[in-house]
């Protein structure tokens, strides 16, 4: 079975869970499950020994859970669970149906743009810690979409940010994840250490490039022996796309 079906099944279940909570069913708010809330709560916990605003223990506990996961399986959370990653990927596939040869972001620009998420990460935490408010809500597609522009959204600015993000997602595969996601930035140092990763057998690789074409993150597995790249989500799209038998394999290795 293609790994994608397995991935999409799990992601659909999790997305359905978020929608269920966002619609007001269940005993929790969907925001309780945002791991980045764990990062946002750290300052309040350190300074006052309590969670600020509407953040809670679940945010922090989930953050810890998926940081441990990143140490084991890189950004598997992004590739196998994140609802925004899932929606971005669906957007990518949808535009791929009508736009077969989309222009790639030049490698140099792409490298710089990938650093943007650290700026988002730093600004989000700085303003959250400074004001004690969840400033990111006004710019966060996860919050804006699932809360229906709830408390914390900032009117026109939120609309502009969301529309710009959606356009970005449709033009550039995984635009939000690659360039803007502060949770992705949180994982980066952990993800590099993750020991379950895709490994390439150089002897049988024909350098056809099918793996890079399949990679939602636009990585180039054929240029690496072990995919250590911090942005690899272990989605295994490259493994499924590779026409050569057992050239790309999922392995436990340092």
């Amino acid at each position: 079975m293609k790994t994608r079906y397995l991935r999409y099944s799990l992601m659909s279940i999790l997305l359905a869970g978020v929608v269920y909570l966002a619609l007001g069913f269940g005993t929790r708010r969907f925001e309780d499950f945002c791991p980045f809330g764990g990062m946002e709560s750290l300052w309040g916990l350190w300074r006052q020994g309590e969670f600020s605003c509407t953040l809670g223990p679940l945010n922090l506990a989930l953050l810890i859970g998926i940081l441990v996961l990143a140490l084991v399986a890189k950004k598997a959370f992004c590739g196998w669970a994140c609802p925004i990653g899932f929606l971005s990927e669906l957007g990518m596939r949808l535009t791929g149906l009508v736009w077969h040869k989309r222009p790639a972001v030049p490698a140099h620009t792409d490298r710089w743009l990938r650093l943007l998420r650290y700026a988002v990460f730093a600004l989000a935490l700085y303003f959250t810690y400074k004001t004690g408010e969840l400033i990111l809500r006004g710019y966060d597609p996860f919050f804006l979409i699932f809360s229906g522009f709830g408390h914390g959204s900032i009117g026109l600015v939120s609309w502009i940010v969301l529309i710009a993000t959606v356009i970005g997602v449709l033009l550039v595969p995984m635009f939000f994840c690659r360039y803007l996601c502060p949770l992705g930035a949180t994982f980066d140092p952990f993800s590099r250490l993750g020991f379950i990763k895709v490994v390439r057998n150089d002897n049988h690789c024909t350098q056809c490039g099918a793996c890079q074409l399949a990679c939602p993150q636009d990585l180039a597995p054929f240029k690496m022996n072990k995919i250590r790249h911090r942005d690899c989500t272990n989605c295994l799209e490259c493994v499924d796309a590779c026409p050569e038998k057992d050239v790309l394999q999922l392995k436990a290795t340092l």
Partner: protein
Amino acid sequence: MNIPRILLPLLVVAALFSGYLLRAAFTQPTTTVSMGSAGGKTVECIVDGLKCKGTAAFFTKLYTGVPGIATIETFATEHKAVFSYDPQVITTDRIKSIMEAPLPMRDGSSRQVFTCRTIQD
């Protein structure tokens, strides 16, 4: 060492599930109030409307002077209240009806602020 791909979703689910269980380690009460009566039994309620420090303080005040309530702990992030009470003096139905009673608003109207979603001994 080769890894079967099914391990990835299993690890993801395990990480999310462990996170969910781990939350208990970080859970602190938002308010803890002792009402002076003798306890005996405890009851746990999930309460809609109990969502922050302000609503937790307001919620606790509803039980001021109510006989039979020993302590109330609220957990705003869990939307939960835990009552220790004397079953000889007060019933869980009464505890529920107090929180769900319509409350007077500033504009003269009255509105139900809290809804008890679940109640468990």
